[in-house]
């Protein structure tokens, strides 16, 4: 009986190890899913002002001011959220480095960089 038990025990350890490794592998996969980052617009500032994300991550801007703001491509005006008010939000999937500003209040600026 003893050799059989030993053999059985060995098989169990191998099986559990495989399951655990598989589990960790799955977990690793889930962390590669696109992440969601939040930028608060508060007291006329983008917080955080500079953000580092992975390609394909989504950024959500939430306006906490009672004044209208927008989020607009600063260099080429290629994209804009249009103005949005208090507690309203707007989001964008990030595929490249971005420099943006509030086109209503041109001194409010922010950046997003893709993590290398």
């Amino acid at each position, binding site marked *: 009986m003893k050799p059989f038990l030993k053999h059985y025990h060995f098989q169990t350890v191998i099986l559990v190890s495989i399951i655990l490794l598989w589990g960790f592998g799955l977990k690793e996969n889930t962390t590669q899913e696109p992440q969601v980052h939040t930028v608060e617009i508060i*007291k*006329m*500032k983008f917080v955080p002002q500079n953000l580092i994300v992975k390609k394909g991550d989504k950024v959500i801007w939430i306006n906490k*001011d*009672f*004044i*209208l703001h927008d989020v607009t491509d600063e260099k080429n005006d290629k994209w804009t959220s249009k103005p949005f008010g208090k507690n309203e939000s707007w989001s964008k999937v990030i595929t490249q480095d971005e420099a943006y500003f509030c086109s*209503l*209040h*041109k*001194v*409010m600026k922010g950046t997003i960089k893709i993590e290398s």
Partner: protein
Amino acid sequence: MKNYANHIKVFGFLSLLLLVIPLQAQESPKLTDPEIASVAVVANQIDIDFAKIALQKSKNKEVQDFANRMIEDHTAVIEQAVALVTKLKVTPIDNAVSQSLLKQAEDTKVNLEKAKKNDFDKYYVDNEVAYHKQVIGAVNDLLIPETKNQELKELLETVVPALETHLGHAQMLQNKLTSKK
């Protein structure tokens, strides 16, 4: 144009003195919260009035955009102030500071109306820089320290970054207009 710039500087300095002297002449802060609420509403309304003149007289899109921004943002501030005093069941009370601001504003409005077309943009934007500096100083140094009600104090503290952003925007325009000359 140098004359206008000098007038603005002198006007800004005198305005600040007119605003500060009556308060400093008193031994201790005397503005009550209802009076502070009145000053807040009046100061915002004045800038809306300046902007309305700019929309009538300026042909420069950036100046018009700035004027529209002043109307929208300062209207939003007034709405917040009115909502707060309504909630607190406080009626804004007219006072020496509000009246002093209004008196100065009347003079500025006359000058804005009189400004020649070519000079208007610079005159308006220079005044916006001076006015926002004056109001930021008054809110930080006089109104916030004297406010008793915490919510009114918080509203004033929230308005300061907006005023500073307006000042930055106005200074940006000022530089552009100066470099064009």
